[in-house]
């Protein structure tokens, strides 16, 4: 058996892979945050709650309507997106002229409410969500037994991230979005309905969160607090990656997942803090984040 720093290589590789799974969630969530921050300049504190909402919708679909995982994997993000758009239209929209901090506070309030409502109906203990039939079981990778579903998480999130990246970097829609981030006023002067674009972007960003929620449902319990615990780490990821940078979010999300996974092996006590420590260091050295542009 080969050891790395006294840890068998199997365990090492295994933890890297698990880190990648967690990193997948970080990546999708921070991607959504980045998209939203880019165009709206709002730190979407409700992101975690909407992630939770996605998971719950999947669970409710199964519980009450008998809809299976694959249906909900499509439907739940759409519903979350629509919900987000309603939020944007009714509430967030009125705050753009004010200090960005109000956006943060508003979404914080929204997060509290959504979480509170689900708590009052379902308690904080999680609801189990079965792994879809077709993704049950595990493959033996030699160094570890990887449940197929975990592999699917990494695959699905990489696909979604790359798809989003492609949409934003390579399509006309994306060019509108990027241009809107740079100079929304001018884009509007070209005749583009920027307010609508903002609504849709917010919808899309939170739909990503919803998607992550559905992905997470079978591995984590579907619980009202699942988002609250995750969101702060994701914030840190966004800050490290560079606020608003798409590729930054994806790469940092996955990377930090892995680093966190490794910390669990080498220095378990620090595993929950390592992301914040990295954040502090990055901020000292590169205030705009690893991939962020200095403004």
């Amino acid at each position, binding site marked *: 058996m080969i050891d790395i720093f006294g840890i068998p290589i199997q365990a090492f590789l295994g933890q890297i892979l698990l880190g990648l799974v967690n990193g997948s969630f970080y990546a999708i969530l921070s991607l959504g945050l980045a998209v939203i921050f880019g165009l709206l300049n709002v730190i979407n504190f409700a992101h975690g709650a909407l992630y939770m909402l996605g998971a719950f919708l999947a669970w409710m679909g199964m519980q009450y309507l008998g809809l299976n995982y694959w249906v909900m994997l499509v439907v739940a993000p759409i519903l979350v997106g629509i919900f987000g758009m309603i939020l944007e239209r009714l509430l967030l929209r009125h705050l753009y002229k004010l200090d960005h901090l109000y956006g943060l506070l508003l979404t914080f309030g929204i997060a509290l409410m959504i979480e509170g409502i689900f708590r009052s109906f379902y308690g904080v203990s999680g609801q189990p969500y079965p792994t879809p039939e077709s993704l049950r079981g595990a493959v033996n990778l030699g160094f570890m037994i990887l449940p197929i579903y975990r592999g699917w998480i990494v695959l699905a999130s990489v696909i979604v991230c790359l798809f989003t990246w492609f949409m934003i970097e390579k399509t006309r829609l994306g*060019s509108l979005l990027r241009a809107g981030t740079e100079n929304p006023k001018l884009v509007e002067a070209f005749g*583009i309905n920027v307010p609508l674009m903002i609504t849709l972007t917010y919808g899309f960003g939170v739909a990503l969160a919803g998607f992550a929620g559905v992905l997470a449902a079978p591995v984590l319990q579907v619980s009202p607090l699942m988002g609250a615990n995750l969101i702060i780490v994701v914030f840190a990821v966004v800050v490290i990656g560079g606020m608003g940078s798409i590729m930054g979010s994806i790469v940092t999300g996955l990377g930090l997942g892995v680093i966190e996974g490794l910390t669990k092996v080498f220095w378990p006590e620090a595993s929950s803090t390592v992301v914040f420590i990295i954040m502090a260091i990055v901020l000292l050295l590169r205030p705009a984040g690893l991939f962020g542009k200095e403004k």
Partner: protein
Amino acid sequence: MTALALEIKDLQAWYGESHILHGVNISIPKGQVITLLGRNGAGRTTTLRALLGLTGTRKGSIKVHGVEAINLPTHKIAHLGIGYCPEERGIFASLSCEENLLLPPQLNGTTAGDKGMSLAEIYEMFPNLLERRNSPGTRLSGGEQQMLAVARILRTGANILLLDEISEGLAPVIVKTLARMITTLKAKGFTIVMVEQNFRFAAPLADHFYVMEHGEIVEQFPASELAAKQDTLHTLLGV
């Protein structure tokens, strides 16, 4: 009397608290080319921006092809057939040259007649852009960026063009290209509002001149009176 493409009455505008435009009146018949002259800071750029609702508060009346636009959101105003080429060019750094070019949507507002130029026509007019089509927008030279900024709005089918200092910082040869382009556009029936420091560039092109000072129109005359107004112009603009 020909139909007015643009009719601005008593337009006032503010940036935050500073009151920049103090009641601007301009009427432009369809197909005319006019030039706004004035010193730095006279408020010409602000006039264009106010037309599109890009300033802070604004008051007064703006009719685009007879449609009142003072209360419309910016993107709707654009759909009335206005294309805007900003002073700072507004090339998007995160977009390639061609993406920049393709960015503004085709306007099919009520009165925007033309279909707009095709990409091929545009590349024909500005061969430089064809060459640089894949480089990031802000890597283009200043002149190329300027061309791009103008070319960008030609595709949209807008028939009222607001061109802010398009000749600024450009080599004579490009300025000539631009002059030719404006002549062509004029022939095609475009209505054009130019803001120019470069009087020599603007003089032969414009049908009508307006001179601004401190946010007001202080003088206006048709091209035919240009010679006669030399002295006035000199006192108003010259150092």
